[in-house]
């Protein structure tokens, strides 16, 4: 797996930069004056509820959507003034499958080679290379409409990396895939980032995906970045672990004095103790509680962080890729 190198990015060059980047649909700002820097070789995650602006941001960076105002550079090229050069630097795996059903897997890749100007001499080799990465060699000559959802995704991923882009955009790369396939795809992605020194920007709804893959995560909501940090920092700042236990002698006064205890709730004879780092302090905590009948530890997750920053209410599903966004894409 990709090794996390938090805090050491300052030396790497910036490959994606936005300055007050904004995209409005009528009065609504899907992306609202966003400032962002992504460094070379980084796996950068965009998290956010439906309609938060993730896809809109990626669409702008991929030059298929023009910003209303603000500027952005990808691989050093201005997305509005030099879209051609931006496109040569990037690979994309879209949210909705965009491989051609009536072509074979191989034909899809051949077409991509031509469209992205891969030199003739290395085309065959590149196709073999990516087919083996995604394990599709045996099915390459079958029409894509005979593929399963996971196979299509893998084909798209193969296509996205075939021209060795500097930057790979993944819009929900593992949406609707079974856990095995998801696991595989994560491995490919982090391998690639290391081997090819490729920068990856991905959106996802899967917290565990973001947590295990990303070097840094931006949680965005209503078109703005709410918070941006490494997954472990984000968790450290917000998340507490909860120790649920049943003591023989309930005495919360002494426990409250402990410096790592944040909060204690009592319910039906059970204590819910929020503490900073259960893996470190559990032993000590238990010495202060006296004998107990029962203990259970629930570790805090990135999900808690996400909920903390974006709230609990369900968003209107005027989601990305929905009818209205398509209508307004003009």
């Amino acid at each position, binding site marked *: 797996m990709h090794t996390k190198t938090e805090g050491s990015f300052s030396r790497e060059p910036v490959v994606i930069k936005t300055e007050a980047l904004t995209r409005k649909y009528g009065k609504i700002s899907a992306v609202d004056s966003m400032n962002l820097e992504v460094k070379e070789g980084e796996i950068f995650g965009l998290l956010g509820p439906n309609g938060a602006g993730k896809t809109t941001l990626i669409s702008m960076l991929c*030059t*298929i959507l023009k910003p209303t105002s603000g500027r952005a550079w990808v691989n050093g090229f201005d997305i509005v003034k030099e879209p051609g050069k931006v*496109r040569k630097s990037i690979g994309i795996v*879209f949210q909705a499958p965009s491989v051609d059903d009536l*072509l074979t897997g191989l034909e899809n890749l051949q077409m991509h080679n031509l*469209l*992205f100007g891969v030199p003739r001499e290395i085309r065959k080799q590149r196709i073999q290379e990516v087919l083996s990465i995604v394990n599709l060699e045996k099915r390459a000559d079958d029409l894509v409409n005979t593929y399963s959802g996971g196979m299509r995704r893998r084909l798209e991923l193969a296509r996205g990396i075939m021209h060795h882009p500097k930057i790979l955009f993944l819009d929900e790369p593992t949406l609707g895939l079974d856990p095995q396939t998801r696991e595989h795809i994560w491995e490919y992605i982090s391998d690639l980032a290391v081997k090819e020194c490729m920068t990856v920007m991905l959106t996802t709804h899967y917290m565990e995906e973001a947590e295990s893959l990303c070097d840094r995560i931006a949680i965005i909501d209503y078109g703005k970045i709410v918070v941006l940090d490494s997954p472990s920092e984000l968790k450290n700042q917000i998340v507490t672990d909860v120790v649920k236990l049943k003591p023989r002698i309930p005495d919360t006064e002494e426990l409250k004095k402990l410096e790592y205890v944040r909060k204690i709730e009592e319910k039906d004879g059970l204590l819910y103790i929020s503490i900073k780092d259960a893996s470190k302090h559990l032993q000590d905590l238990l010495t202060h509680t006296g004998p107990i009948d029962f203990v259970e530890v629930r570790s805090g997750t990135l999900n808690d962080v996400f909920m903390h920053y974006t709230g609990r209410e369900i968003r209107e599903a005027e989601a990305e890729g929905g009818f209205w966004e398509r209508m307004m894409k003009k």
Partner: protein
Amino acid sequence: MSEIEGIYAIWLREAKIYMREKERVISSIVSPLLWIFAFGAGVGSTIETVQGYSYQIFIYPGIVVMTVLFASLFYGVYIIWDRKLDFLKEVLVAPVSRASVFAGKVLGGATDAMIQVVFLLIIGLFISVPLTPIVIINAFLMLLLISIAMVSIGLVIGANLKSPEGFTLVINFVMWPMFFFSGALFPVSNLSGWLSVVTFINPLTYGVDAVRGIILGPHQFPIFLDVAMMLLFSLIAMSIGVLSFRRM
């Protein structure tokens, strides 16, 4: 170089898909057959000759042009499907200019139409239309020019609409007037008043005139005028097409 490869890639995809969708090929052959054998023979039984030819033979060039017109215009609907299926995105983010994407699509659509022309030319041989190799080559080139113009119009409409249903509605308002006011079914030489005005501003009239001139002989305008009008019309349609694709 990479632009040409881009055009080739898009054309190749269109051609492959067309050949794989047998329904598309078969259905596009049926309606011209009905026009020639049902309409042409039926109406022909009440008419002696038109400009020296049986009615069935007289409308044959018009029906070939009609087939090209329908196939070419309707091809524009596939851009809407491409967009619905999100396939288009892959092409739009490629480092290939929109003009090349458009060119690839135009060639793809023209290929569809010209494959149908080949079928119709073969049928023409069986109903003793006077087709010599030279005639076939000239007619083919003229039909290709017509096809390029009409595919461009279809793509302009497709690029600016969102739903296949909307496309069908709009295209019917373009297709049928163009066909009926083109002289495909009657000579345009002795029309009166408004009808002659409408046919003279219809660009397809010049296409039909040229193809009939090439295949059968009788024609209304000098051939260079026909070709010039079609060329001019194609250029205008293609320019609007490239602009529409840039906005996509």
